[in-house]
């Protein structure tokens, strides 16, 4: 499906980067839908990224990506599968209240949910200035900071929600925050 000005590699490379997901995939989706013009796409990308407070240059790069993806895809007709797989519909009975209550009885399963995906701001530790005082470790409300064998704090980015309490706690300002949304 990919042809024209943009190589498959360009698109695949861009889509592989987290920050390009919404712009690249969005551009592909609107192209495939056949309902949205390139001008409308540009306007949507512009509005979405401006709200995030990104630099003009980053927005420009994203707009270019959108245009490349949009221009690189041909109009396609999506053929539905001839026989859609039959999904079984469940007839739900009453389950015992032990099951049918939104409660959790098994302790210690919070780790299974990777709350790091909620993060907008990403705290990063500057280890050159870190004195290993441990205040960030103590202050982290989610227990997402551990101490390594030398006593240096290590952030678990799978679970850090980016609240930046560690940054506020650090007496030497050795923790900085970076936006999770980046240039592609």
């Amino acid at each position, binding site marked *: 499906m990919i042809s024209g000005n943009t190589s498959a590699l360009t698109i695949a490379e861009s889509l592989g980067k987290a920050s390009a997901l919404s712009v690249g995939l969005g551009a592909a989706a609107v192209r495939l839908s056949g309902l949205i013009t390139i001008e409308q796409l540009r306007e949507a990308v512009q509005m979405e990224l401006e709200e995030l407070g990104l630099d003009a240059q980053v927005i420009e790069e994203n707009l270019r990506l959108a245009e490349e993806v949009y221009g690189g895809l041909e109009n396609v007709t999506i053929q539905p599968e001839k026989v859609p797989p039959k999904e079984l519909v469940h007839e739900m009975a*009453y389950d*015992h*209240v032990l099951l*049918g209550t*939104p409660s959790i*009885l098994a302790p210690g399963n919070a780790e299974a949910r990777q709350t790091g995906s909620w993060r907008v701001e990403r705290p990063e530790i500057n280890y050159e200035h870190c004195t290993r005082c441990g205040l960030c470790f103590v202050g982290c409300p989610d227990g997402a900071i551990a101490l390594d064998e030398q006593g240096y704090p290590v952030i678990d980015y799978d679970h850090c929600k980016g609240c930046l309490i560690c940054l506020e706690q650090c007496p030497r300002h050795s923790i900085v925050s970076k936006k999770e949304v980046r240039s592609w």
Partner: protein
Amino acid sequence: MVRKMLTGNAAAAWGARLAQVEYVPAFPITPQTEIIESLAGWFADGALTGKFVTMDSEHSMVTAAGAAATTGVRTFTATSSQGLIYAMEALYTVSGWRVPFVLVNVSRGLSSPITLGPDHNDVLAARDAGFIQIHVETCQEVLDSVLMAFRIAEDSRVSLPVLVNLDGFFLSFTREPVEIPNAKLVQEFLPAFRPHHPVFKGSQSVAQGVAVLDGAAYSYFRYQMHRAVENALEVHEEVAEDFYRLFGRRYGALEEYRMEDAETVLVMAGSFSTKGKAAVNRWRDQGRKVGLVRLRLIRPQPAAELARLLTGRKAVGVIDQNISPGLGGILYQEVAGALASTSDRPPVMRSFVGGLGGKDISPAEFDRVLEVLDEAKSGEGHVPCELLFTDAEYKQVRTALSVAGKPLEGRAS
């Protein structure tokens, strides 16, 4: 067994006392306050042990009731009108926890304009909150229903809060002879609360009322709640049977009054059903075949039984003591819904709205209902609800408006 002249409020408090409730979060509001005052007195003098706590609002109060129930403690609370709707968010929340407790609502019309007399817009606003709803007619039924409510709430097939509704003033402040059941028999009927799922206690890791954040899990729990409310139909029947065996009074999900050969049927709820029964007696004396069905269980709706009672009749008039602006009577819609898929529906069905804000429904207004039902034609299609209101009442309102400086003459433009 002792027989006393009790108000509906005192009867509700006696129900909670006999159930040996252990936690009562409270907030005053007319016409409910007498219930929590009575309970406060009994917690103070030792007749009840446990905690009586005054809260900062009904929202906190209902949340506290639900939270207490998550610890496995038998919990009771009461409110009315604005208090119930102020607690609306909490009502939906705590029922989702699937915790049993009993809430008594003393019905009172909603603002605006503010008033104190009863109607059912407050309690029916909560009809989708996942609470079982029992609407009572007499002070005796208040006490009995509070006891039955705990049994239903605590059954593992239900495990939900139960709301017992009584009408303000007409029951709350009216003394009627009430039998206070023997405490030992009550213990047999209602043993100590044993939760059916793990509750909060020391050294037990449990999270209750957790977020789900996905539609499938949300649908599962909400639908389970629906099934649990439906289960209350069967549980109510069993509990009513036990209650009858021990105390000699029988309660159905619906009450039939002189229905045996009735061609015309009134459907009503709450204490005004007594007025409806008086009208039925009067008409029966005149040789008319009229009966009455009182809706006692509002949630779950006893739809099958309702359909059984009403199919084959010539005319049904539902008198709603509530109004849904732009729709009409709420219970009329529910009754019509229960009949929708039956083959032998009554050819005439009409909706009446009466008794709003505690306004009386006079014999003349009941006669009007019968007259309308007699004259209505089969298959007439949608007819808007009719307000029951007398000329004298309209004159009274116009007099009040005139005192308020609102004569129409010379002002209307």
